[in-house]
């Protein structure tokens, strides 16, 4: 379980002080699929970086289970949009997965079955000897998923992971991710600015406001069976509800860009 209580995050820089988050509270239960949704600059990535332990909070607390988060932890793995940067381009598909097992000090004898299992789960087992530069964008993201799952974390923190993929590949990645989530029971915190993506994936959507002083304006339960049909009238109602919530923020984004 992840618990964020009254978190405030202030960035100090040469250009001045920026209050990114101000009074954010959120609880993510085990096995939940939570989407953080909001316009660019709403602090959702900042919140995710705090959950990953990359950024300290200015005030408030973040807990993973009963332990305060103060750095990267074994139970949490972050997942990046730019797979080209996040992967190790000089290692093959299989070696990238092995890298995680190696730095986790998992006994060597256990490596091969783990590698096989997760490469098969993401459909990459026929591409083991390829380098990331030889993979498509969707395959690189699947490799990131395999690498993350192989170290068996409890929580996946995903920062707009499919934002750079084309629409068809993105839908395919959604089905893969949901399938893996249902099979493994991981807790997922998924950042996105795409309303349809959030509705098709999440158990619960945390809508965030445009910064500075971002907060979670509303938590919405998505009580629809999966796989979700985006033409379902209930989806349209939800979509409109979120759109209305975001409308004032969208106007402010327009002013700033």
């Amino acid at each position, binding site marked *: 379980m992840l618990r964020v209580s009254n978190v405030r995050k202030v960035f100090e820089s040469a250009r001045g002080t920026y209050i990114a988050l101000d009074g954010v509270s959120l609880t993510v239960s085990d096995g939940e699929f939570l989407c953080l949704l909001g316009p660019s600059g709403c602090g959702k990535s900042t919140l995710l970086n705090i959950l990953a332990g990359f950024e300290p909070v200015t005030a408030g607390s973040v807990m993973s289970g009963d332990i305060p988060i103060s750095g990267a932890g074994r139970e949490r793995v*972050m997942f990046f949009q730019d797979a*080209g*940067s*996040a*992967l*190790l*381009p*000089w290692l093959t598909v299989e070696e990238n997965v092995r890298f995680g097992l190696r*730095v986790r000090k998992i006994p060597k004898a256990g490596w091969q079955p783990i590698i096989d299992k997760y490469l098969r789960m993401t459909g990459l087992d026929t591409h083991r000897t390829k380098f990331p*530069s030889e993979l498509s964008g969707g395959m690189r993201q699947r490799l990131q998923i395999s690498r993350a799952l192989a170290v068996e974390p409890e929580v996946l923190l995903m920062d707009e992971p499919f934002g750079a993929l084309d629409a068809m590949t993105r839908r395919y990645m959604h089905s893969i991710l949901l399938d893996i989530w249902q099979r493994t029971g991981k807790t997922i915190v998924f950042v996105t600015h795409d309303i349809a993506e959030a509705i098709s994936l999440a158990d619960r959507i945390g809508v965030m406001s445009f910064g500075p002083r971002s907060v979670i304006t509303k938590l919405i339960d998505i009580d629809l069976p999966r796989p979700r049909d985006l033409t379902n009238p209930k989806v349209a109602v939800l979509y409109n509800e979120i759109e209305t919530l975001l409308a004032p923020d969208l106007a402010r984004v327009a002013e700033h860009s």
Partner: protein
Amino acid sequence: MVAKPADDAGERSRRSMTATLSHGALAVGSLVLAFLIWQFLSTVLFNPFLIPPPLEVIRTAIPMLMSGEILDDVAISMSRVVVGFVTGSLAGIFTGVLLGRIRLLHDLFDPIIELLRYLSPTAMIPIAVIWFGIGELSKYFLIFWGTFFIVVINTTAGVWRTPIARQRAAECLGATKLQIFVLVIIPSAVPYIVTGMRVAMASSFMSIIPAEILAADSGIGYLLQKSSMLLQTNRIFVALLTICVLGFIVDRIFRFFVDRVLARYMSFVSQT
């Protein structure tokens, strides 16, 4: 008639072979053209004493090769380049990694490096002779000097530009600070380091010659200097040609090594 797929593949490989052949033919053509222009310049436009014709130069080169005279000079110049280049590269990589990693060191030493790098090895020859004499040490020093700054600057940039996502991803997987440094940051900097070393290698070739002209009693630069004093333009041209061929060969060896050993580190993955 419709071509079968097998024919298609054969056709493709034949086409790529044709491409290689025509590329090779063009390279040979370019060299032949150069010799023709050279011949024309030396016999028609200028005095053959000032620009000795190609055949004359080859005639001079053969006994120099046979007696081993030129090979001795090549060996001594190369050993200077290699010693200075290797030590300069190692020191440059070591310093560059530290500067790329430790902010305080970077802020402290970057201004000094930014100023000193404008002192080319050639500018350092007079003081090097006073410090180290005209023996091997002064040449090692000059090549080291030329290599060091180029490699430092490139290495620092490479370490600096390791994507933050890559470091954080490794951290999440459980890598320690040391593992991130050795297994993520250093390999990420390899393309920058190699680029720096290649530029430094070229610069070493540029600077060994003036160093030997001004302060040596052996080496190709010395051969140039001696031949100039004796007005032996033939021998000067042999020395100049030797430099061209040597630089070309060394760069090819360097590339071959990089392709064989470091190829996997050289690929940049584009942003998805």
